[in-house]
């Protein structure tokens, strides 16, 4: 499982965060667009994607698997504390992964702990490695 074949947008985007002013309607906010760092693991039965999403709550997270691609999008608003000078900060996370064949997307599950997303993508039964026992004579 590799995320090299991502969309053109992702391929062309700077990997590091880009700070830019938001629309005039919320000029007090600083928007940071981030492609979250991720680890990918494989076992005999599952793939796992582990991604850093600091400040993201479950309500602000979307994971969408669509055919051969999977998108993680999330936002983490950090409001300026009351009475303080400065601006609000909004982090927007987005990353695409290409999925290998044989992933049972309907059985995927995710959990979010301390700003870290762990996504489990089970392999379809036919895509799992079957061990063949060698019998001695």
């Amino acid at each position, binding site marked *: *499982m*590799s*995320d090299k074949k991502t969309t053109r947008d992702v391929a062309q985007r700077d*990997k*590091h*965060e880009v700070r830019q002013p938001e629309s005039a309607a919320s000029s007090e906010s600083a928007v940071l667009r981030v492609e979250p*760092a*991720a*680890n*990918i*693991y*494989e*076992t005999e039965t*599952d793939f*796992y994607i*582990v991604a*850093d*999403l*600091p*400040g*993201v*709550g479950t309500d602000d997270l979307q994971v969408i698997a669509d055919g051969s691609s999977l998108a993680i999008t999330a936002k*983490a608003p*950090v409001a*300026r*504390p009351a*009475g*303080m*000078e*400065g601006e609000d*900060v909004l982090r927007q996370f987005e990353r695409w992964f290409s999925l290998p064949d044989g992933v049972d997307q309907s059985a995927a599950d995710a959990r*979010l702990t*301390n*700003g*870290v997303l*762990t996504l*489990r993508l089970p392999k379809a039964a036919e895509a799992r490695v079957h061990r063949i026992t060698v019998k001695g004579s």
Partner: protein
Amino acid sequence: MMWNERHPLNLWDAFSEMQRVFDEVGRDFAGGLGADYPTMNLWSNDDGVAITAEMPGVDPKALEISTVGSTLTIRGKRTVSPPVEGATCLRDEIGSLEFARSIQLPFDVDADSAVADYRDGILHLSLKRPESSKPRRIVVSASGGAS
């Protein structure tokens, strides 16, 4: 001699300045990782500062937050392990790390009133300015009349 009197040699200041320069260079080249980890936001007012520091996956019990005068230091570590034992890592962008970051605040911190809270991978800090160092408005009294 005159130089020393006007600019007393202070190794700590020299170190802080050096660290500040390294932080700026590191920010440009490392894009948020390296010398300036964790990345921080800081807001301020006359009463103190509010700081957020992003450190996903960190055990909050292993965080060490200390202040010496006006210097705030945050130390911690993150241990990354596979989600299940025996998993093979195919892509490795998140690794275990130990970090320490110090920042200089514009006032000596009232450590007794500091509040720290870790949630969703972000450390929230509230640090108060001691009453003695809060800005005071000085009323200018006019005496006599302008001619």
